[in-house]
């Protein structure tokens, strides 16, 4: 049942609101993080195209220690642009298994490819059903972006 849902989400069309692309193959937190299940309980976390456009040129990402555990809503790390500090909160209970070291050399990957190469951490999700409780692309656009814009 759950597998079917994931497949359906993958096939859903990406959304575009104003200049912002919101990928339909993942879920979103109100604080602008996306999370995407890779396989089993492994997932990646990054920030939305909307968030990176608001933040503008990212010049620094604070590395995250592997093995660190976070409860849903806890601060995982920060990414910084010239004028702002973006806080990355855990969208679900999780343990960090990998930090994207490519960001050390090129933090602008968060701007150029927020849903791909610009991922921030890879995590082990304690309870994948927590992901289902997050916002779909459509809900994220309607409930979060449209309210802020």
């Amino acid at each position, binding site marked *: 049942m759950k597998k079917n849902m994931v497949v359906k989400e993958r096939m859903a069309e990406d959304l575009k609101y104003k200049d912002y692309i919101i990928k339909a193959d993942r879920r979103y937190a109100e604080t602008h993080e996306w999370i995407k299940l890779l396989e089993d309980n492994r997932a990646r976390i990054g920030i939305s195209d909307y968030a990176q456009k608001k933040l*503008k*040129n990212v*010049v*620094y990402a*604070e590395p995250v220690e592997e093995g660190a555990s976070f409860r849903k809503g806890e601060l995982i790390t*920060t990414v*910084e642009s*010239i*004028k702002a*500090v973006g806080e990355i909160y855990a969208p679900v209970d999780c343990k960090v298994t990998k930090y994207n070291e490519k960001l*050390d050399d090129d933090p*602008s990957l968060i701007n150029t490819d927020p849903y791909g190469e610009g991922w921030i951490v890879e995590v082990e999700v304690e309870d994948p059903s927590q992901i289902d409780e997050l916002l779909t692309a459509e809900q994220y656009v309607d409930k979060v972006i449209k309210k802020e814009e």
Partner: protein
Amino acid sequence: MPKFSTPLLDIHEEKGASLGEFANWKMPIDYGDMLGEALATRSKMTVFDISHLTRIIVEGEDSKKFVNWIVAKNIAKLAPGWMIAPTAMLNENAGFVDDVAVYCLENGKYMIVGNAINKEKDLEWLSAHSSGFNVKIRDITEETAMIALQGPKSPSLAAEVVSGIEDLAPLQILATTKSDFGEILVASKSGWTGEPGFEFIGSPETIGKLLRHFLDKGAAPAGLGARDILRIEMGFCLYGEDIDENVTPIEARYWVFSWKKKEEYIGKDALHRKIVEGVDLLRVGFEAKARMPIPRHGAKIRVDRREIGYVTSSTFSPWLKRVVGMGYVKASHAIFNVRVNVDVRGRLYQVTLKDFPFVKPKMS
């Protein structure tokens, strides 16, 4: 809502600017890539809308005497066709009322260009100190626009529009000069990026046409974000961040005053006392050793864990590919090339204290 707005807003919107508020002005912050805009200024050419800067005309029989009393550099010998920058209006304690540029447009007619944030204060200060002087003080900020063309490719493009501009020496100006786009009130060669650069002041209509022309001819639009990066790379102060009414030019190591060659001006006695008594803090630059977050205004500077000062401005320099910034440290610790720490949210990052500029100016 900001109180003022650049008159060139429609052009910026066409160019995809993201607009924001700065010092009560609605203006372009960037055009999608402030790092790229800063880099383009050093490698090619960009154009900035700086209409928000305060522009005040001082004229009348006593204008020379008055301006010389108000600003800290000697303008007695400033001839028409030249400007002095930077200088400052100091208060009686030698704190900065504003840091300004003074243009001599013609005999007895000066223009003072100051920071946007200080417009009302500057006007009040000038008016309050003008009693006994036969002068007329006129704010022309809103009836004019001002743009800056900056970068190594700017001299040839500027010359296409205003003949003779390429021959200007630094701080030389052309007052009321003709162009294909209408009369330009002032064309000047000063620059605050370290690159060759020119400023143009005139009616919003003329300056708007000039801006479009520069954009059509390959100057990339650049916004306030890039401007801030470029000025930090040069070690220049921003009023309200790095200097204010409680800081004197001595602590700021900001050489905006004349000393021996000038008899009297507001703040001179206090400056003299500062020199005699010495200062507790000095403004210094710092450069990151490795990648680090940008310390924000107020971040503590430490040696080991001992606090020796604080950051006032910092940025990521796309040219140097590292964090640079400035701040005030105890005079006893203001030693260049010494490694100290900057505290960002409780974590210490190593930086080296440096003199300015971080990027060597190309303009001579």
